[in-house]
């Protein structure tokens, strides 16, 4: 074909597309069921990934989104990241109004260019080009075209045809072209119940989803990862910023990571080795040694992220972290491992999904995880170390990384292990105290709160706050519902050995009780009220999830003011449900003293959607009982 022919064809071709597009892009062409509950409609999301070679990949795509209202603006997603390894070769966008008429056009140079840094990051060479568009009216449609060329094939975008709640999808098309016939593994997740067709052929992976209405968000539901469809992709042979891999099991994957990315990062200076050896010389117990090393790292380092080149996957040199006193999760973990190596304690780098709970998929081998920590095998009694925290107790993970499958890079290769779960009763909070009431309803009290497990994790940081912040913490956060609170004295005890945090407080509260004629009305739950009632759903669609179980025990002794006596005390309240239990009773000691007992426990788990209503009723009853007041009359 000569140039003339090419031009002719494109001339003929382009207007035709424009015309048909303008017609189709009009909002009136969107089926009604796709507009319902939707803030945005994905008219088309087409991605074609061509794996030209182990270290050459082209991703091209067209994304057409009709934004129905302001809340849908974030779905235009006209943005692409790039770095030294990844180039953006095409980038353009066109905006159409509700009738499908073109109103604005953007070429690549009109996109904003910024550094893609997140919190905690000092510097990163990742950058992003994104479109800054101010909508002039709703609805509008944005067509986004792009092409990216990269030498990294280790990360192939998974397919997420349903992008979130309140968004519908008219068509999502996903193709992987594989001219070199490389081994590509795929895994379909949550495909059931979604209109997906698989059109794959020999050298082509091809999936489509059509006409998926918007799903509604519901609180206390299972994570969207457990509900929405996802196609995972993995290559056996791939390249990561110039480092090549050939893997097919977690074992070989782990071996590759160790040998290519990690093993040569461990060197320390002889001075540091001598120093750490001298610190542990009085013991031979590996766990004792590990505690000393962990403590040393916590005192010496802090978390700062600097990402250059392959630094997103490879740790900084241990000697560098030793010198600078800072590093990211990989750098700090690797540094801790290097120190443990020096004192003869075996440990393993461990890849994990941190923060919101997510497993490394043990049945699908690919680049996964977003964080790194350390594992000490300890003859089968694994000890886990979070190396980015300066304050966590040794071996305690908190809800950042607990209870999930992780990839441990052992000497014999990668192994999937599960981190300890801190469930239900383990997360105990015990509140004990004595209250003295005066005839005006004012309270003077001693309160002792002991927190364990994940409740420890929620709480122990207050130790580091200054006196003003501590005052504000109790007044505006923990006991936000108490007016006229005064913290007279506080003392904290952080026992890192047993992972127990103790708060010992002397407080007073003005006007807690109210006078009503001859009676003094007193709310009996002073220190541990729940104030949250779950959202009501007329038609709940998603299962209920209680993410974190716990147990709270309260025992508060009340001393009535002079001249008042107990007449009748309310009856015991006891509720047992599938989700947990609640018990409240008032134990009379004598005419002027009684003890308030409360036990409230929730069990983590996933419960069928029909149970949501029962759960909400349960929490409502707890809330109501927590607000119970008792009348005491004058003698």
């Amino acid at each position, binding site marked *: 074909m000569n140039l003339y022919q090419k031009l002719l064809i494109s001339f003929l071709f382009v207007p035709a597309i424009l015309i048909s597009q303008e017609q189709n892009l009009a909002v009136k062409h969107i089926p009604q069921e796709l507009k319902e509950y939707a803030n945005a409609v994905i008219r088309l999301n087409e991605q074609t990934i061509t794996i030209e070679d182990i270290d050459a990949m082209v991703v091209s795509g067209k994304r057409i989104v009709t934004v129905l209202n302001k809340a849908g603006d974030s779905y235009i997603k006209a943005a692409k990241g790039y770095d030294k390894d990844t180039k953006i070769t095409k980038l353009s966008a066109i905006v159409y109004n509700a009738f499908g008429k073109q109103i604005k056009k953007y070429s690549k140079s009109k996109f904003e260019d910024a550094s893609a840094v997140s919190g905690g990051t000092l510097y990163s060479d990742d950058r992003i080009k994104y479109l800054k568009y*101010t909508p002039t009216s709703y609805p509008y449609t944005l067509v986004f075209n792009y092409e990216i060329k990269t030498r990294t094939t280790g990360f192939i975008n998974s397919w997420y045809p349903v992008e979130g709640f309140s968004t519908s999808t008219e068509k999502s098309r996903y193709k992987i072209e594989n001219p070199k016939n490389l081994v590509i593994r795929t895994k379909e997740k949550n495909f059931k119940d979604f209109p997906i067709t698989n059109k794959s052929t020999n050298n082509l992976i091809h999936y489509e989803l059509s006409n998926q209405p918007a799903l509604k968000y519901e609180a206390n539901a299972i994570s969207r990862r457990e509900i929405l469809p996802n196609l995972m992709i993995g290559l056996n042979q791939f390249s990561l910023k110039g480092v090549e891999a050939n893997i097919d099991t977690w074992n070989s994957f782990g071996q590759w990571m160790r040998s290519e990315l990690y093993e040569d990062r461990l060197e320390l200076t002889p001075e540091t080795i001598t120093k750490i050896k001298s610190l542990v010389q009085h013991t031979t117990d590996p766990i004792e040694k590990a505690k000393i090393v962990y403590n040393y790292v916590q005192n010496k380092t802090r978390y700062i992220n600097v990402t250059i080149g392959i630094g997103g996957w490879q740790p900084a040199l241990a000697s560098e972290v030793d010198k600078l006193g800072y590093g990211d999760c990989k750098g700090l973990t690797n540094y801790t491992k290097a120190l443990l190596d020096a004192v003869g304690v075996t440990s393993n780098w461990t890849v994990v999904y941190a923060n919101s709970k997510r497993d490394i998929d043990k049945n699908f081998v690919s680049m996964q995880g977003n964080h790194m920590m350390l594992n000490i095998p300890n003859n089968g009694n694994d000890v886990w170390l979070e190396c980015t925290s300066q304050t966590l107790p040794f071996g305690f993970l908190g809800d950042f990384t607990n209870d999930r499958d992780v990839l441990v890079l052992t000497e014999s290769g990668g192994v999937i292990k599960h981190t300890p779960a801190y469930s239900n009763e383990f997360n105990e909070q015990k509140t004990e105290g004595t209250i003295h009431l005066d005839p005006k309803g004012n309270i003077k009290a001693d309160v002792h709160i002991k927190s364990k497990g994940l409740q420890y994790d929620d709480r122990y940081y207050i130790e580091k706050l200054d006196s003003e912040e501590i005052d504000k913490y109790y007044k505006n956060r923990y006991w*936000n519902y108490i007016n006229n609170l005064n913290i007279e004295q506080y003392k904290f005890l952080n026992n890192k050995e047993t992972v127990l945090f103790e708060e010992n407080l002397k407080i007073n509260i003005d006007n807690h009780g*109210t006078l009503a004629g001859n009676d003094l009305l007193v709310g009996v739950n002073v220190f541990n009220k729940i104030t949250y009632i779950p959202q009501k759903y007329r038609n709940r669609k998603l299962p209920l999830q209680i993410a974190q179980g716990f147990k709270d025990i309260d025992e508060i002794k009340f001393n009535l003011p002079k001249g008042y006596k107990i007449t009748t005390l309310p009856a015991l309240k006891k509720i047992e449900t599938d989700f947990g239990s609640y018990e409240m009773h008032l134990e009379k000691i004598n005419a002027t003293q009684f003890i308030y007992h409360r036990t409230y426990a929730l069990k983590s788990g996933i419960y069928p959607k029909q149970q949501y209503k029962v759960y909400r009723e349960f929490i409502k009853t707890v809330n109501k009982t927590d607000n119970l007041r008792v009348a005491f009359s004058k003698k």
Partner: protein
Amino acid sequence: MKKITTILLCTLFLFSSNSNSQEAKFGKVTKEELKETKHPLDSTADAAYLQRTKKIYYQFNGSQGWSLITDVYVKLKIYSEEGFKHAQEKINLYQHGGKKEKTTSIKAYTYLLKNGNLEKQKLSKDQIFTEETSDNYSLKKFTMPALKTGAIVEWKYSIRSPFFWYINKQNLQYDIPINKLKTKIYIPEYFVFKQHTKGYLPIQLAHERKNKTNFFENVYTINSQDVPALKKEPFVSNLNNYRSSIDFELSYTDFPNTVREHYSTNWDDICKDIYKSSKFGTELNKHNYFNDDLLALKLTDKSEAQKVTSIFEFVKQKLNWDKTSSKYTKYGVKKAYETGVGNSADINLILTAMLREAGLLARPIISSTRDYGIPLFPTQKGLNYVIASVKLANGNYILLDATEKFSSPNSLPLRVMNWNGRLITKDGRTLSMPLKSKIFSKESQLLSINIDSNFHASGFLRSSVFNLSALNYRNKNNNLTEEKQIASLEKKLDIEIHNFKTTNAHAYHKPLTRLIQFESDEFVEQINNKYYINPEFFLQDKISPFKNESRVFPIDYGTPWEEKFSIQITLPQGYVIESIPTPLGIALPDNLGSFKYNITNTGNKLSLNVTSKINTDLILPEYYPHLKEYYKTLIAKQSEKIVLVKKQTSAI
């Protein structure tokens, strides 16, 4: 002999400490400083500047002309891990038209005490990063190595700027304490700058004239000791307004053998300069682009107020704010009008021009938004916004900002209600215009509840919002579906809603009204044989917003406000009232605010009227103890209950 040595030592010591305070010496860190575990004056401080020094001066060089040099020296003490974040420096560098600000000679050390010995570590060059943040800015960043609690870090560097007419605002207070602060600015006689200082701490600015070989310099010095940390508080619009700072603004240049060139000196000159700009006055005077649309609005026979409303609504419809604030147009009025997108100046200059073309006395007001600071003194760079004004025949002014879809005439968005703006007349004169509204932000709640003998309650609630409250309500709810609004209201009030209706949601110049019908079983509390009902139900204010012990800064509400409840209750049959709350009226001193609680009953009907009012937009911190006490009383009153007992059924 011994005596003499002591005296000698003392004098020597005094002398050296004196010379120390004259010039910051790099690397002078003592063990005593490293041993310190708490700041002597602020035990809550996570870190403190032992010293912060800045020297700003001019250099002339035949090939490059004038440069402005800033030498920075910082000595920081870290008391806790929370303080590590201060050991990070970010230097913002500007570039424009091929000219660039540059940093030179960055030098930085961390000092630690190890086994009683002083150890230091240098910041290596490869740990200094440069990030291109936008076309005009880059950011130089570094964080200090080997930090530990107790450490001292020191850094110094110079910035060389070709933009010699622009001296950055100098902050004189930070969110951690400063022990010694020294800022010295040397300006050759050819450049004449005005100084504006602000903040709640007094600033001692010394000025001297220093003779050089051929000219003289104006030298400005600020020496402060023990500057306390600036801390956040609720209801403060922009903490920076209270931060001590000094700003230099060029008023003229006066070189030998050339004509004196004037920059801003007073409001008249500043406004004239802005008006002369091609991105202001020229833009304002264009009108061909909208003439047809203006004719189509058919305003000739309409009243002044109708004209204002029509044009205002038209411009709000037509133009969309790109969320950027400026006193100058960004796209130009014609382009903005065509594409429907503009910044604050594009949009409000179009509005002003259209109003003017329709025969109204319309003029722009240049101002500063809340997050930008307060233009206390004549300043060109302290202004970042434009709104429109109309002077009516009766002499009253209407202020308009068409960037907010839900705003109405004279109801400006909170960000704009900031101090005073400068109105500019056609002939370039200028007037000060207060932007803070005296108009009350109002909420009124009409609640009617009927409780039956099974303690099942049903009723309706009619809520009306006015002015700023209405703008806020519309911003929050107008983009939500009715279903979402119901769900969030049900959750917040713990009731079941049957009917939901909003009127005037889009009639922005009218108050917005929402009517709901609801039911609930949660309103009656039983204790022994008595039944308690809070007569404010879900409208009750339960938590005082002012629980902290003391307050440093004014409480800023934006506008005065008023909240009114009018509640009618029908109590269940078969019960008699044992007691009801007593009426109450309290007030804050100096007519700052008041709370009235009036309750009456006839038979089983009860009526409650509550009015809560703050008569000013700003309450000074001196009144904080009163305000705290006032809230304590009104929260206690609002928690009082109606007490019912069962009617004694007499035997037949």
